[in-house]
């Protein structure tokens, strides 16, 4: 395996030694560019009490290129599709090399706290969200309970 840039090592160390509340990111043993991530659902959100599993991969061009992040746990969210892909500007056009794994994961957590159905990725969910917000939130809660409850 190609050797790891110092920045990645530094970030990894800091994620372990100084973790962000509600977020864990553990590099895979075989591939230090691959992280297993968990994010706790923010309080007062439909995802409260849920623990969501994600995967994060740092491409070769990182930090020039944004990391690739995907939900592994099923989630009912207008900006996250059935495959777990996330619609988030900092992961796409607004990426800057000054951002880090930590900041990216915080942004994901923030996205859970404030879904944005006006810029949807999962169209059916977004529609549902816009038309019957309460029902949608209830469904999100239900899914959280169903799929994201810590065993």
């Amino acid at each position, binding site marked *: 395996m190609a050797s790891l840039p110092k920045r990645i090592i530094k970030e990894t160390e800091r994620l372990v030694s100084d973790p962000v509340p509600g977020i864990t990111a553990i590099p895979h043993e075989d591939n230090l560019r691959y992280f297993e991530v968990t994010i706790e659902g923010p309080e007062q959100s439909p995802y409260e009490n849920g623990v969501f599993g994600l995967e994060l991969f740092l491409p070769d061009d990182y930090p020039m290129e944004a990391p690739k992040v995907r939900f592994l746990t099923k989630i009912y969210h207008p900006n996250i599709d059935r495959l777990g892909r996330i619609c988030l500007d900092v992961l796409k056009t607004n990426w*800057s090399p000054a951002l880090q794994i930590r900041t990216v994961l915080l942004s994901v957590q923030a996205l859970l706290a404030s879904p944005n159905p006006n810029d949807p990725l999962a169209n059916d969910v977004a529609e549902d969200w816009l038309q019957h917000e309460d029902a949608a939130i209830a469904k999100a809660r239900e899914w959280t309970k169903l799929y994201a409850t810590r065993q």
Partner: protein
Amino acid sequence: MTEESANNNVNGESLTKKRFFSEELEVDNDQDHGPLENQDSFLFQAPVTTSKVDSESEVDPKELLDMIPGLSGSQAAYLLAKTDTDSDRNMRISSAVGMYFEQQPTQALSKTPEKTRPAVKLSNILSSRSPSAARKKIRDYGERLPKKPRPSVQWRRFIGSIQVSALATRPTAKPLKYGSELKIIRNNSDATSKLYSANGRKKASMANFVRLIDSELGREVGRVPEEVAMVLFPLLDTDELDFEATMIYCNNRRLSVGDSFIIQLDCFLTSVVFETDVNGSSKAKPAQNFEKPGYVTNVVESEEELRLKSRRLALLSLFDQVQLRPVVTGPDETPESTPEVTEVIDLDGGDIENHATVEKDLIQPSQIQEDVLNVNQLKSLYKATLSMESSKHLPETVPDPEVFKLDLRRYQKQGLTWLLRREREFDEASNSGSSLEDVEGSMMNPLWKQFKWPKDLSWTAQKTQTDLSDTQHDEEFFYANLHTAEFSQTKPVLKSLLKGGILADEMGLGKTISILSMILTVPFDKKYLKPKLLEDTSRTEYISSQGLSQAPNHTKPYAFGTTLVVVPMSLLSQWQLEFEKSSAAENAHCEIYYGGNTGSLRTLLTKTKNPPVMLLTTYGTVQHEWSRLLNNGTAGVNGDTMGLFSIEFFRIVIDEGHTIRNRNTRTSKSLMDLSSARRWILTGTPIINRLDDLYSLVKFMRLEPWSQVGYWKTFVSEPFEKKDYKGAFDVVSSILEPVILRRTKQMRDVDGNRLVELPAKEVIVERVTFNRHEDILYKYFLNKAESSVREGLDRGDLLKKYSTILVHILRLRQVCCHADLLGSRDENDEDLAGNKVLTENFNVKKALLNESMSTSMISDDETTMILNRIREKYPNDGSYRNLECSICTTEPIDPITQIVFTECGHAFCEMCILEYIRFQSERQRQIKCPNCRFEVDAKRLVAVKECANGEIKPVLYDTGSKSSKITSLMKSLKRLQDACPGEQVVIFSQFSSFLDIMERELTASFSKSELKVYKFDGRLSMKERSKVLSDFAEKDLTKLKVLLLSLKAGGVGLNLTCASRAFMMDPWWSPSLEDQAIDRIHRIGQVNDVKVVRFIMEHSIEEKMLRIQDRKRSLGEAVDADEDERRKRRIEEIQMLFE
């Protein structure tokens, strides 16, 4: 043959009546038709097969039978059938006779005498005749007593026959009897003086002096053609050769003056010719003789010399005419390859084809060898000479651990055996089969050729049963040196008294260790150590064995316990280190003789109790001392009383021995004058440019006789120039074979393992694009260069402008590296050394750049504005000290000269932000400040400048100030430093000023804790060199160590296996030099995979240089025959550059 028939026609006589010797005919018919009984009526068929197109050409085979007794009817018919039916009958007969006799030389050539050849068959038939018939024969052919040998001649032996068409000079009363003996005599009346005019030129024909005499009548009958006379005349009155002439064909007519007749001339070598001792006394003689006639053409040759010369030519011509050829002992020549030859003559028609193939096969081998051989085969010569099978099977010698403490590899142990054998130190070498024979091998002197005694087909042997001469010899071969006309029955083995040789193992096989193992195993001259006074100088046994140039001077004190090792300066400390690592004996020590650090060497080496085992010095020191001695007065090197030339060393070893390849340099000359009993050369590349490179090595070793320039010229240089590559290479191979040992890394040992298993090596070409400034500069110089070349080509005087063009090329190469190099020299280009054209005005560069800048420059006002903003944000020096680069998360950015601010005031590492800008623009993305997303303009970046007075101030960042190559290098290093800190990296360049620039930029771009720069170039003193190398070699896991290495100073010899990565900043003309540089790290001791990056500017001269390198690799650099050729080659290269 043609002459003969022409004569017949002129005389206008037709063959009306045949005159039979009736007896003879009867006998022959009776005897020879026996085997043909089944093929009845053959005689009647024969005329049919020999078509009747032309009645005139109709020939009765009987006629042939008359002429050649012992010929069977079918043979005759066959011969006739083979002749050209268009020719007239005389012609046909004579060519048939010719064919019949031509079979004999073919027979002589045969390597498989067991196989029945026609002539042998013939003789079988003859010998199977009844005794009475044989007796009859003897009588028939006249009295032919076995020749009374001259008193000095003990025996003679047949070497071949020539069929000679002789010219009658006197009319005869009756036809000469078939088979009658003729005498050959030489008119002895001071022929030589008539033959040659005063200037040694031949003026008369030798044919005038050689006559044929009818031995029965004692009367002259004719003369032989000039080409035969040339052979006979010089050789007739010596005892060395013996000739017998037998009448074969005279048309059965009386001879008139001017008639032709055919005789068979049997040639014999006698014992006399073998009596001179070729291996001994006579060996030196031709060596001296040689220089005279060969080179000083205007000197008149003495009579004796003329005699020798004509004798030599005669022998050469004789061997040619009897078609006696040396036995070829090529590996591909197996006896089986000779096609089965059946009795061609005895079989009829159907076999003609077969016969034809035989002839073809006989001709082909030599043709192939001559035609296919081209210059490229020097490479194969290299292979053939050097990678000898035999080196695989050398026994191993393990050095005594008491004196040598390192473990040798297997091939090194074998090498040690070889080295010791070359020094005749058989006691030390592993004892299996190490006799003198083994050392010398069965190496034949290349000037000598082996010949096989042909089957005796002489007239006497065949037609009479008195071949007493043959039975007593059972040697199959004899040997002849046709260059000197010497003969021998025993194999003339090349015995050199030389102790020493060339260890030419490929780079990285550990030549140093090998030779050290020998030095330590045999540290002093044992024969000399016997209780003698140290001052004793009567060591005739050593000196006489060498034929030193200062031979009469035996008075030099003998440093019998010291080996002098001459090395390039850069390797001095490495050798010392290796010595200390390998030497186990307590009292063995090594001294460095350099920079005048010792007093009298003579005292040190010959008067002290424990002289150093090894004395290290440099080529420079030797040369310097030599020059000083020469300038000091008449005594020259013999006047030395304290230095290197005052002593005779026990042994001299020169490392990187190709340094002396040009024998006209002072260095080379000075080395030649050092005295030593044993002389060794270490080199990985014995030939660099010219075949003559080898001569210097041979001369240094004093390898007689080749060290005489005349000898070398005659047998190597001249054949080579005359395009006789094979000849030249054969000689070179045989000269070198006994004295050189070369193994390559690819070679395998007896068990099939590679000699050396090295880790993988990866060489990547990284193409770099010019930045804007470089592009402008490059185009400017390219234009100039191109117009200059075009001019040269148009006017056809490219050669005259050669050096100007080289300068142009140099400029282009410099722009590829760094604009600041312009105006500096290329210290590696021999053709440019001392060129004065280099002092061009380089203001042009400034002008060009300013011009290009002005269009894109931002105004002064704007600049001030930008800088002010930075100043506001970072009011004092301290505020620069703790900045973090958000891209690489380095904190603080160190050194501060590496900081680059965006217009919005955010700080980044220079490399990070440049990489970001490149990354974004490549993908056509917006370039925004990573921190605040403010748009970033590459032209409006701000750098921090540290002024000479310590003041720190922001300045506008100049993207063009860094060369693209350096930027690429920096990026690679950054990545490397990021990923594997603690790595050691070697960076090669041929421009030492480029090394300076890189040193500056690297220290400015990396913090001291990240990266340490070392520089190794020609300007360092010896002490500094070893310090740099040892510091660099020390592993430091926290920081990258970079060694900037100049090709010239460090291209050879250095061992840098601590590093596994290298960057080649610029391509070199010679790919082998580049490979050699890479081999500094890719050699024994390297444990990691080696990765090499070569930076090449895109669309530049450098890309074309790569192509030239490829070309050189395929053509082989070694083949440059001479200066002219080399220049021509370079011109072609120049054209390639500007295609």
